[in-house]
């Protein structure tokens, strides 16, 4: 795909490591985090802070902390304070305090030797470096539970009670610990736990509308204007919501959908691209399952697949599906089954995880059933069913 035809303007804005300038629906938490550190910022030598950030996967813990880190270091710079923000993913360092500290030291001395001493020695060295450079560090321990699991209370105790061994000296090291929930620190001894638990920011799962706002924000940065229709963003938000409100999943899906659109030279990221993208991440329906459906189940599902394929819609109504089914039945010269029977088939498809159905809000004409095909590309589904029906005809 040539640059001129790509749906993307700047793919890097969808990268897992990209930290946006603004964090939609996390502004309160960002302010709170800044509030916790305001005294440390004003009088860095007098107080080190400890904060925990909790929340499920994709609730924005890492990005919140990194945004804060950049902002706080810039603010400290304006005040003439040498404050560094160091973000470490504990799991990447196998939960080892030694490796984590070595990474922190390498921010100041990139060629600091990696072997030959204990974690205690390295912690002393780290503080010595901070004293010599009159520097202050906010050390973020992402996936903190992996450090707790590997090193236990002892390591965390050393980090949190560092100042007790250096009375009347400037406080140098603040901590932000990121983990999914507080179960991850249950194995710590009560005193270490209580030291950490004084400031907790817990991030709630994003709602669908919040996910849409986040995705819209990224779409405007990463894609060409009008390359991603509203329906696609809505569908991706729905899929991210189904994945526990995981915004990161949604952002990755957007990128993947964009890649499918580019590969086919579509120029826009249609909902079908998102379906194909998600089917590459989530295992799609098994072929055997489709083969086990009855003739009319297959015909009805084929009509649904065709409708989605043709319309580029995210949802279709049961009555639309029924009309399409009537056409398919004509094509296969068979008499259509009743509305009640089709509703039962829909139930079967829903249980099999092929479609999702929802009931629309009551309007003047009563309630109607809506069908959504979130995970499987309509085109693949149509192809598969057509193949199965042809085999039967032969």
């Amino acid at each position: 795909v040539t640059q001129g035809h790509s749906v993307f303007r700047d793919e890097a804005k969808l990268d897992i490591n990209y930290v946006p300038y603004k964090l939609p629906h996390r502004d309160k938490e960002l302010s709170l985090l800044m509030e916790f550190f305001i005294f440390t910022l004003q009088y860095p030598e007098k107080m080190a802070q400890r904060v925990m950030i909790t929340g499920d996967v994709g609730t924005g813990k890492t990005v919140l902390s990194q945004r804060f880190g950049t902002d706080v270091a810039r603010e400290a710079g304006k005040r003439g304070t040498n404050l560094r923000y160091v973000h470490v993913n504990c799991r990447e360092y196998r939960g080892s305090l030694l490796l984590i500290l070595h990474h922190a030291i390498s921010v100041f001395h990139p060629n600091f030797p990696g072997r030959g001493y204990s974690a205690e020695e390295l912690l002393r060295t780290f503080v010595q470096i901070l004293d010599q450079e009159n520097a202050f560090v906010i050390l973020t321990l992402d996936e903190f539970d992996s450090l707790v699991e590997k090193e236990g209370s002892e390591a965390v105790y050393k980090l949190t009670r560092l100042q007790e061994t250096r009375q009347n000296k400037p406080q140098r090291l603040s901590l932000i610990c990121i983990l999914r929930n507080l179960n991850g620190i249950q194995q710590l001894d009560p005193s270490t736990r209580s030291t950490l638990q004084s400031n907790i920011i817990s991030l709630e799962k994003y709602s669908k509308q919040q996910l849409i706002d986040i995705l819209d924000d990224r779409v405007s940065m990463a894609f060409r204007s009008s390359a991603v229709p509203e329906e696609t963003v809505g569908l991706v938000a729905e899929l991210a919501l189904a994945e526990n409100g995981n915004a990161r999943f949604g952002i990755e899906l957007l990128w993947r959908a964009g890649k499918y659109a580019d590969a086919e030279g579509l120029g826009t990221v249609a909902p079908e691209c998102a379906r194909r993208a998600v089917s590459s991440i989530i295992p799609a329906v098994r072929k055997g399952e489709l083969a086990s459906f009855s003739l009319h189940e297959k015909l009805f599902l084929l009509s649904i697949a065709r409708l989605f394929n043709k319309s580029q819609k995210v949802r279709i109504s049961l009555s639309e599906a029924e009309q399409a089914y009537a056409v398919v039945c004509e094509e296969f010269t068979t008499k259509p089954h009743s509305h009640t029977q089709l509703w039962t088939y829909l139930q079967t498809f829903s249980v099999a995880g092929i479609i999702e159905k929802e009931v629309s809000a009551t309007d003047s004409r009563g309630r109607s059933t809506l069908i959504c095909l979130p995970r499987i590309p309509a085109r693949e589904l149509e192809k598969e069913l057509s193949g199965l029906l042809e085999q039967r005809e032969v």
Partner: protein
Amino acid sequence: VEDVFSSRLRMRILRILIQVSELNVSEIARRVGVNYESAIKHLRILEDEGIIQHKMFGRIRLYRLDEHSPKTRAVQNLIDTWEHADKQ
């Protein structure tokens, strides 16, 4: 001046420190291809000349060029000019 420029090892140490800015003794020894004692002997000579300096972190001794020394700048210029001329 002969003490610095007459030694192939000392010149190699200086070139390494120009490239990476700061290194511990064992790593310098490894990169130059000598043992620890030999490396420390050459490093001390360069430090006595005021071209490099060191900081101790526990048992770790990190050497770097003394950026404020006119001798260091002269050595850096010499090596830069030499290597630049070689490339042309």
